[in-house]
Every structure is written in C-alpha cells, then in structure tokens.
C-alpha cells in the first residue's frame, strides 16, 4: 500500500457516521444539552421578571447564553468517551491526517448539538417574546456561531481529555474563546430588534468561522497528540 492510496474522504464520512450512530443510540445523552438549554432559558424569566417588555429586550442574550452553556456542557464528552475506551489511540494511529479526523468529530458534534440548539431557538425566542423581526438574525447568528463554538471548544476538550473531572477546567479554557462569538451573536440579534442592518455582525462571525475552520482542527490535533503522552 502506498501513501497515495489513502482515502481520506471515506474515513471522514465513516467517522461522522459512527459518531452520529453513537448519538442516536444514546438519545438520553444527546438530548441532555438541549434539555439544559430549555431549562436555562426558562429560569431567566423566573429569576428576573415575567414582563413582556423587559424580556423582549433580553431575549436575544438569554437564548445565546443558553446555547453557549449547552455547548459547553456537551463538550466534555467530545473526546473523553473515545479516550476512555481506547478509541482515541486508534484515531491518533490512523494514517489519515489527524486534523481531518478531528474535523469529522467536530462535524458530528455540531450535527448532534448545534443543530438541535438552532431548531429549539425559535421556540425559546417565542417564549421570551423576542420581536419577530429579530428571528432571522437569531437563527443566522446561531447557524454561524454554534459550529464556531464546537470548533473553539474542541481545543479545550482536547487539552483536558486526560484530566480527571476536567469539566470546570474545560469551561475556564473555553470561555475566553467564546466571548467574541457571544458578543457578535447577541449584537446581531440586538441590532435586528432595533430594526437596523445586522449583516456586519454576521460577516464578522463568518470570518471567525473561517478562521476557526482553518486553525482549530490543527490546534486540536496537536493538543490530542501532546496529551497522548499522558
């Protein structure tokens, strides 16, 4: 076999498929972040006030913070389950480029977590009285923001994969990376509420997503190799 015969595309799709099958066979775990999302969003009105005027001001931020926390919650298991049963070693030993495999894992993570959050978002936005003209901005910003959070959070997940009870550490490492996403995401919704053009925010998020797509798989792959030394 020569190096040229590597079929990276097939390996990528097989890995995405594997992770999707795993997610579908453990629906409880997969839906956990979504349930958490719903809970966080419903705690805000209880904690602040049920007034429509106030909530519609805060709705964009609440939905976004809920999504951010839900992604953080789901990240811990991104590489940890693979580490625990030895699959991570098989990933590291694959002749395929590790960043490609990492991108497959991130894609599967986004498809199971990010997409669910986007689907839930309109429901939460309705409950929180988000003005209707801001719905497209909310959905578009989440569409760009959730994959970015999966990518950026993957770095923290990779660095803490061998750390016992690394959940809090993962949060600490990921939070600074999430702040720009949160700012642009809520910014887009807020400008839409005010009836202004929010394309600037979305373009910035798209630019960050491109940056994340290029750099995060490399950083995650390097981190996984480094921590494999244990």
């Amino acid at each position, binding site marked *: 076999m020569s190096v040229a015969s590597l079929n990276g595309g097939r390996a990528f799709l097989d890995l995405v498929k594997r992770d999707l099958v795993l997610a579908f066979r453990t629906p409880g775990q997969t839906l956990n972040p979504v349930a958490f999302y719903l809970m966080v969003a419903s705690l805000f009105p209880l904690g602040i006030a049920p007034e429509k005027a106030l909530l519609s001001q805060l709705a964009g931020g609440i939905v976004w913070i809920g999504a951010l926390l839900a992604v953080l919650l789901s990240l811990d298991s991104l590489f940890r389950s693979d580490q625990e049963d030895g699959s991570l070693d098989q990933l590291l030993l694959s002749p395929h480029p590790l960043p490609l495999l990492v991108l497959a894992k991130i894609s599967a993570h986004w498809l199971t977590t990010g997409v669910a959050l986007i689907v839930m978002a309109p429901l939460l936005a309705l409950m929180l009285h988000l003005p209707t003209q801001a719905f497209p901005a909310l959905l578009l910003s989440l569409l760009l923001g959730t994959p970015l959070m999966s990518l950026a959070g993957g770095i923290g997940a990779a660095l803490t994969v061998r750390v016992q009870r690394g959940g809090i550490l993962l949060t600490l490492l990921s939070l*600074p*990376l999430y*702040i720009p996403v949160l700012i642009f995401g809520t910014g887009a919704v807020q400008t839409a509420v005010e009836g202004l053009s929010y394309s600037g925010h979305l373009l910035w998020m798209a630019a960050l997503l491109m940056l994340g797509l290029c750099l995060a798989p490399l*950083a995650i792959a390097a981190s996984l190799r480094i921590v494999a030394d244990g």
Partner: protein
Amino acid sequence: MPGYCIKPLRAVSPERQVRVTVEKRMNWTFFHKLGSPKWFYEISGKWLPWLAILAALLMAVGLTWGLMFTPPDYLQGNSYRIIFLHVPTAFLASAIYVMMACAGVVTLVWKMKLADMALKCCAPIGASFCLMALITGAIWGKPTWGTWWVWDARLTSMLILLFLYMGVIALRGAIRTTNTAARACAILTLVGVINIPIIKFSVQWWNTLHQGATLKLTEKPSMAPEMLWPLLISIAAFYLFFTVVLFLRLRTEILDRERRTKWVHNIVTAGAGN
C-alpha cells in the same frame, strides 16, 4: 511532537540522515547554549543583584516623583496619581502574555526546557499584575466614574486576560507529566494570543454598541511632561521588578527540575556546607 507527514517518501540513507542532523545541530549550538538551564542559572546569578538594585532605585525615584512631586491634574485632582501603579501593571499584564506566547513557540519548535520554565514562571506573575491592574482600575474608577466597576472596553478585556492567565495556570496544575504540561500550555497560550486581538476588537465594538460614550481613559490628552517622565520611569521600574521576580522564580524552577544533575547537586551540597 509526532506529526503526520504525507510528503513523498524520500530515499535517504541512514548515514546521510545522521550527517544532516549533525550539521543542523552545529548551527544551533549558540542557541542551545542560551537555552541551557545551567548557563542561565550562572548568568542570572551574576545579574540578579544589579537588576534588583536598579529596580529598587527606579521604583523609588519613579513612585516618589509621581506620587509626591508632580502637580495634581486639573480635572481629577490627586486621584489620577494611581496611574503610576495602574499603567505599568496593565502594561506588563499584556506584555507578559505575549512573552509567554513567544516562549510557547520556542517550547513547541525547539523543545527548549528553559522556555517552558519561563512560560510556567511568567503565568502567576502576569496574573498578579493583571489582578493588580484591575484592582487599581477599580479604585481609580470610584472617584472618577463614581462606581467601582464599569463595563468599559479596557477593563473588560483585562478581565478576560485574567481568565486566560487562570486557564494556563490551571491547565499546568491539572497535567502531571512535565513535558506534556509544557507543550499543552504552549498550545493554549498560542491559541490565547491569537484570540486576544479578536477579544479586544469585539469588546470595543460591543462597548460602543451598548453604552455609547462613557467616561473614557482611551482618549489621552497629551500628557504633560512632568507627568509623563515619572510614568515612564515607573514603567521601566516595573519591568525591572518583573525581571527580578522572574529570575528568582526561574532559578528555583531550574534547581527543582534539574535536581538530579551533578551541577545542581554540587550547588546544593556547597550551600549546605557553608
């Protein structure tokens, strides 16, 4: 670091390869000497007293001048004098993180132990300066803005910088193996340093979006020279102070990590004998 390589396999005989690596190593002897913990320990021992004296001297001059002899500000009165503490610490807090990122590159590329030790020793110092900048900022904010905390772009970025420092320190503590922790922290600092300008920009944008014009320190009125000079001196003094603290920490770290080598053994037994 094991990497992946899809380059066409070159047919290189082992003998030739050995020669190539030897040649490469020859070019880097100076660099390697620079990175030798032993060499650094000896040199830093010689410099340390002088640096400490100079730091103390500049600190005394800068702070006395700034706190006692400069005229009060026409707007803020005497409260502005905290800049002689606030500005140097804030300055260093950012500079140290960049320094750590450079050390991270050296750690990853040349696997230089000394660079990693520097990265490790810098983190708590940088975090302390960051915290000090935040505290002095809050103390300054009370008389100036009438409140301890304002979600000003600068303060917010400084707070996030503190999170970045805490992340590096926590990750170091969480990974047991020294070499693994070294490279993991190097990666994390690099990711952080790429992120800093993005954070800075987004926070600034967010700030203008939400708050409009607050009282800002950003627009510097051209500073009167009688205020500028003591400020520059205290910045230099804090830099030297940082170097002294870094050297002290580094020397302890070197002794700890190299404790099984002969030269450390000699130093320790000589110290015990005296």
